[in-house]
């Protein structure tokens, strides 16, 4: 049993196994599509990613959609961090009103499906507060993800030993100074991995805003399919683009983390 696991963990074996599984999946879907009489047209896909003409590199619709997804996710994540930070502060504060408010907010978000939250912001609160598609999409994603982010902040801050607060207080620091100079720098190390996970999660859930026709990657993919009927090729491509984006991100952060540890 143990020997089997050791063999499976060897890098070469792992890569071979991975390739075998991927090949099986691709072969199975290809064979299935073949049986359906699906007409593969991969050669038509690259133009939706990019074109090379006399004017040089031109991004195609999918890349423009990807850029929109990146902007959407970035804006939503920035707002989610602000909201999550505020909620974490309220929860950590000694104020009963603050804790109560945070608890209600968190319960609400945890118990409303993301899709319903999106409809609420777009169809109900949108008209009231004058939110367009983009505004509704950004706010919905930010609010939805602020819940987990506040939890990440709270856990990160609580993972710093209480003696650190006391030592800071003992040299006359205010709570704010202790927070800024002593607690936060120590808790970033704990927060970085789960925060990366949350960015990946947000990028993935951002696809849902295609239901209100925000022109991001998923919406663009769907539009191309309704023009060309290449549903297999385009959905595979869209999935791959998301995968590349999130893998690049995870890789970037792991480099950052290593630097944090040594630095």
């Amino acid at each position, binding site marked *: 049993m143990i020997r089997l696991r050791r063999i499976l963990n060897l890098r070469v074996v792992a890569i071979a196994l991975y390739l075998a599984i991927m090949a099986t999946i691709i072969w199975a879907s290809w064979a299935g599509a073949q049986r359906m009489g699906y007409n593969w047209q991969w050669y038509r896909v690259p133009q939706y990613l990019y074109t090379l003409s006399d004017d040089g590199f031109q991004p195609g619709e999918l890349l423009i959609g990807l850029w929109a997804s990146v902007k959407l996710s970035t804006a939503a994540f920035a707002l989610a961090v602000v909201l999550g930070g505020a909620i974490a502060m309220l929860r950590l504060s000694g104020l009963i009103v603050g804790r109560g408010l945070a608890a209600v907010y968190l319960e609400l978000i945890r118990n409303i499906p993301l899709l319903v939250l999106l409809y609420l912001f777009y169809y109900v609160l949108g008209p009231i507060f004058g939110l367009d598609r983009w505004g509704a999409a950004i706010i919905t994603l930010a609010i939805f993800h602020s819940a987990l982010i506040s939890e990440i902040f709270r856990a990160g801050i609580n993972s710093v030993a209480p003696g650190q607060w006391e030592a800071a207080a003992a040299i006359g620091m205010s709570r704010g100074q202790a927070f800024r100079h002593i607690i936060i720098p*120590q808790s970033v190390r704990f927060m970085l991995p789960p925060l990366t996970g949350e960015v990946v999660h947000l990028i993935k859930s951002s696809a849902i805003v295609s239901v209100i026709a925000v022109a991001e990657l998923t919406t663009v993919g769907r539009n191309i399919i309704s023009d060309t009927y290449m549903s297999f090729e385009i959905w595979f491509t869209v999935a791959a683009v998301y995968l590349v984006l999130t893998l690049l991100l995870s890789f970037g952060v792991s480099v950052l983390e290593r630097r944090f540890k040594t630095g």
Partner: protein
Amino acid sequence: MTQQPVIIAQDISKRFNDFQALDRVSLTVDPGERVVICGPSGSGKSTLIRCFNGLETHDDGKLTVDGREMSEGSPHIRQLRQDVGMVFQQFNLFPHLTVLENLMIGPRKVRGLSRHKAEELARTYLDRVHIPEQADKKPEQLSGGQQQRVAIARALCMEPRVMLFDEPTSALDPEMIGEVLDVMVDLAQSGMTMVVVTHEMGFARKVADRMVFMEAGRIVEIAPPEKFFSNPETRRAQRFLNQILGH
């Protein structure tokens, strides 16, 4: 220099839920005086000295430190803490900062000194605790004894009027206790006002002006060390001394 006492505790009490951690404790500490507090574990020694710098607030009685009355949410608590240094059993150094930065952060952020002034101060006190060569290391690279000496230097960098020590050698390996006590003896000889919770009776004999014995949240006995060690007044202090001195 004012000759009024640095610490005046009058009948202070502290409860944690139903547990009476301090029960009408009265103690006065004069400038330049060295007071050593001992007593069994759980007798309220830590709670008492934590009240002296406002890490705990007493429920009843009156506590005046450095001429200011302490109460729940005292507005001058931060000012006061600059004048009252504290050394913890677990060192509580800031692990993300180097030794030098540990010493400089208080002077810079709290006292508002320039980087240059703060560094000068830090190096002076690092010399005082005999580890100038460790300035650029992180706390985790130091031995326990060295870490505690850095913690002492960090407190001294605030140039306090009184230093509180809460069992500063209890978390140390035996071979490192001496180097920390030596630094504390030096400090005592320089005239610093000190309140030290410790069971190091050799140190107590050497520097204490008065011994305070606590049990169950009360001060049971206060006596000069010669008298306390040879002929304690209470049976309880006698029993405690027998236990700790091992005869």
